[in-house]
């Protein structure tokens, strides 16, 4: 076991799992309802009979009343597939703890809870493109593979969220919940990438991780800033007025991200790395987006 996922971390995961069960008491395991219409137990809709339909699903009572053959449709009951898309770009490797390590812990924790719920999980790291994934896993016993995979992940130089998420959408046939863990710093923008995932039929959940200094910079005076991804240098004179403007722009940036997420019926969560990750996970649970 590496430094990132030690015994202490496992204890916290167990605690989080128990807490998640308490929060969502009454839900049955592996009964996540999919949007897929099929042959499950819960009635969904009617449609005209077509040759080849299973005659067991004809509504004979309706036929008796209106003399029309109608096939009953049910929600197909299947396990929830959860895809964790972790931003591995250089911008995530910032701060102590770095956003990258923090994101790994978040993914590991959510994966642990999901595996305990008999959901299927996959981890798709992305940087300038979609990186080799951890294929779909199911069952609590697979958690060590998750840890191993996350431990071995290294930051990549840049981000191209549009390209990576488009690749993910194209190659992933089984729909499910996509949890994107990123700082959403992408010069090309994140809107089109998120819309692409949404359009691909996935449920979206966005976790925006920032260091507290990104929200409130502590520097003063003239600073030659180097962008960790692009390497571009910008000489910035940080005055009180500049800080006020920074704060305004920063909040506007987050507002746009939140509005974009809401427009896509996407759960959105913003957190500082200074917040203990377990508190952050609890916030995820409270939003009810993960265990249904």
């Amino acid at each position, binding site marked *: 076991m590496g430094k990132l996922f030690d015994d202490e971390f496992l204890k916290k995961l167990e605690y989080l799992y128990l807490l998640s069960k308490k929060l969502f008491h009454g839900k049955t395991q592996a009964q996540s309802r999919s949007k897929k219409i099929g042959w499950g137990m819960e009635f969904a809709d009617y449609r005209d009979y077509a040759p080849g339909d299973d005659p067991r699903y004809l509504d004979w009572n309706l036929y008796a009343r209106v003399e029309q053959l109608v096939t009953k449709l049910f929600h197909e009951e299947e396990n929830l597939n959860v895809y964790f898309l972790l931003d591995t770009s250089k911008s995530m490797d910032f701060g102590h703890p770095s956003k990258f390590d923090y994101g790994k812990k978040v993914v590991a924790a959510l994966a642990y809870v999901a595996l305990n719920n008999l959901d299927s999980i996959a981890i798709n790291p992305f940087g300038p493109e979609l990186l080799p994934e951890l294929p779909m896993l199911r069952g609590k016993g697979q958690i060590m593979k998750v840890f191993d995979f996350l431990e071995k992940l290294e930051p990549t130089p840049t981000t191209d969220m549009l390209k990576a998420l488009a690749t993910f959408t194209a190659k992933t046939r089984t729909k499910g919940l996509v949890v994107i863990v990123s700082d959403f710093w992408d010069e090309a923008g994140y809107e089109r990438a998120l819309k692409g995932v949404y359009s691909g039929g996935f449920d979206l959940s966005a976790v925006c991780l920032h260091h507290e200094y990104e929200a409130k910079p502590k520097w003063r005076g003239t600073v*030659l800033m180097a962008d960790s991804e692009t390497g571009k240098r910008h000489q910035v004179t940080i005055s009180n007025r500049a800080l006020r403007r920074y704060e305004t722009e920063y909040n506007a*940036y987050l507002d746009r991200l939140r509005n974009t997420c809401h427009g896509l019926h996407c759960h959105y969560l913003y957190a500082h790395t200074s917040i203990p990750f377990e508190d952050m996970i609890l916030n995820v649970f409270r939003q009810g987006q993960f265990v249904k």
Partner: protein
Amino acid sequence: MIANGISWSTFGILYGALAAAVILIYLLRMARRGRAVSSTLIWQKVMGSRRSLWKELISLLLQLLLILLLCLALVDPRPPADSFQRRWVVLIFDASESMAAHGDGPSRLRLAERDAWRMISTLRESDRAMIVSAAAEIDALTPFTGNQEELKQALTKLKPSGTRPKIAEAIDYALSSFAYAGVGANDTRHLYVLTDKPETVVAPEAENVQLGVIGVGQTLPNLALTSFDVRKTLNLTEAHDALLRVTNFADAPVSAELAIFTPENTITINRVDLGPGETHNQVVGLPFNTFGKVTALLRKVQFADGAHDALASDNAAFAFVPPTRKSKVVLVTNKNLFLYNALALNPEIDMVSVRPEEYRHGLSSAADVVIFDRFTPPQEPVCSAMYFNPAPGGPFAVMSTKKKPAMTGWAEGHPLLRHVVMDTLQIDEARILKPAKDDVVLMGHFDGALMLLRPRGETFLLGVGFDLAKTDLPLQSAFPIFIHNVVHIFSRKPEGEIDTGHRIGDRVDLTVTEGRERVVLVDPLENKIPVAVRGGRALYRPEMPGFYTYADAGALRVFAASLLDDKESDLTVTQAGALPAFDNEDGRGGIERIAPWLILAALLLAALDMVLFLNGKLS
């Protein structure tokens, strides 16, 4: 411009070095390593697309300008002295005690101070003024300065002290100050004296100096103790008399209470009623053994017209009477009761009587006077001595012995014979004494002297050529007085040297033990004042009436100071006036010192730099 601080060449080197350092720092700052951030997306929006190079350049230029201004301030550049006309003003303030007088408003000194400040405030920056206080001493409170705050501070330091202000000396001092102050050829010189007695100031002839004497205040009523003296009583006893004079300087009648007291006893209280300008003299006999602090005080002063007494410091006078010491007399006699009683009944004499055979030379070393009655020891005593009927072979040469000698005269005015009449003296037999050089014949005879006084250093020898048993002198009332005079004068300092008080402002020579470096004086307000001892003398000018104490050689010494000055107590002002205000519209002024403006500009520039930086306008 003339460099008054560092030279222009030093300025060039200094500015060059500082400018090079600033530019070096600027370049190093430009070349420093960047700080990695996760993203500059927001910062790019904040800073926009504007390149901050011009901000850097402007910041650099501002800093170069800032150090240029500061370096120029160090040069302290000034225009040549002949480029404008300066005024040189000396204000001499009469700081004598009468300037403390006040009616219903502020004192005369404060009125003068206000008037002076009004005039000083009209001076230009290039003008120079000096404040001089003239009391018992002349004190230049400022040098020639253009700093109005310094002048204002000096004005507040003015305080009345002493009497008989040395105005004439202060004027001389001011005129010589003009000569040494570097007054330019185009400059003007002004000398003003502010006094409540302008009529006493004699304006000297001085070229190129505008001299003005300004009367301060108005005539005020005053009742004053103008004399207070304590002296020995005229009968040469150790008792003292206090002599007082009270003067009404007001135009209205006045009544007051005059009290004389010591810390332990009130000696007398009596009422004094005086008409306008009247004087009251009073002699008060102080009880025997009254010594120490004696105070005379005028109180409950009421003028008939309802005015109040304008000067308080002359309502009290102080004297310190030194404690008396009994004269130690050794009487060598064979039961002469006349002599014995005359000495024993005098309370001021501590007498030891011995028989001639008991007399030892050592007795004289502890005595003030030895009186030998019909006995002449082989050795002269150490102290003063009086011989009745001295035998040949003693200090006095005996010429002959005469029956019923005729007295040719006696020294009527001599202190030893004060209050004594010798005209009717009967002598049955006497030895005629031969006067030596420097001897004083107190009682003469055709052949010599019947009574001789011989000075001997600080002591005296008195020879009386007859036996008391062979004269009627002991039966005369003059006898005990004569004996008292002899003992008193032989054992005491002369009366005129008794030091009971001083006038404030006069120099007091403090008694100090040899080797001391300073004396700590406690004034009437209990302030401790160190007085340096120079050349074995500690000199001090008391500034307020009252008692001053100091310790010396384990003893507590006291002296008294009082105002007691007719001229100071007379608060008549003959000509009141005001200082002129200067006209600054003549175009002769100018800014003399540029350095303060340079520093101000540098500060403003620094503030501007800071404001621009905080607002993001500059890097």
